[in-house]
């Protein structure tokens, strides 16, 4: 399994990515990536925020 550590969180490849890497699933198409971007744009348009923006935990 592909595991990478970024900051304090560990990044694990999703089961789909592992299946793609193993040749058991078809790769992600350009259309799928375009659909994700379409959803991102719709999210920004509707809520005025970037869904990629991480929530900063309040301390103290």
């Amino acid at each position, binding site marked *: 399994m*592909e*595991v*990478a550590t970024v900051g*304090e*969180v*560990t*990044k*694990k*490849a*999703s*089961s*789909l*990515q592992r*299946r793609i890497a193993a040749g*058991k*699933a*078809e*790769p*992600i*198409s350009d*259309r*799928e*990536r375009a*659909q*994700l971007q*379409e*959803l*991102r744009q*719709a*999210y920004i348009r*509707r*809520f005025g925020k970037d*869904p*990629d923006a991480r929530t900063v935990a309040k301390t103290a």
Partner: protein
Amino acid sequence: MSVRGRRIAQLVSVGVVAAAVGFGARSLLPPFADDAFWRAFWSGPPMAGLFAIGAAAVAFYPAYRSTLIARENAAREQWWKRAEWALGQAGSDNQTDREVANDALVALFDEATETEGKMIYRTMQNLQDASGVDSEPVSAETSSRWRWLPWVK
């Protein structure tokens, strides 16, 4: 119009209607209308009929509101069932199935709350992101070097 704006508009309309009805009724009462006809009207069957209509309207509103809430809850439940299906399909091995599911998720996003929208986006992103999915750091207490202890699971 936003939910808050709609609520304010409803309150203002109810206030205006109530003020108009109050003003109308007050102007008909003595000494403004010291007339035999109006006295008979206010104390006779027509007024009883109007009160019955008013009581029916008062009883109707909560029933109507609860019907609206039930309908909305049923629609939300249906939405979640479709989203659940699409999210399941979005992780399919088949490219076409995933594209269909993503199209469904984009369509379902129109009815989603902000949290649900973020959940849909993150799920799609995590499935497509080759760098991986965030996961919690492994606790030192349950790391493999402590696993041999019988009380550590």
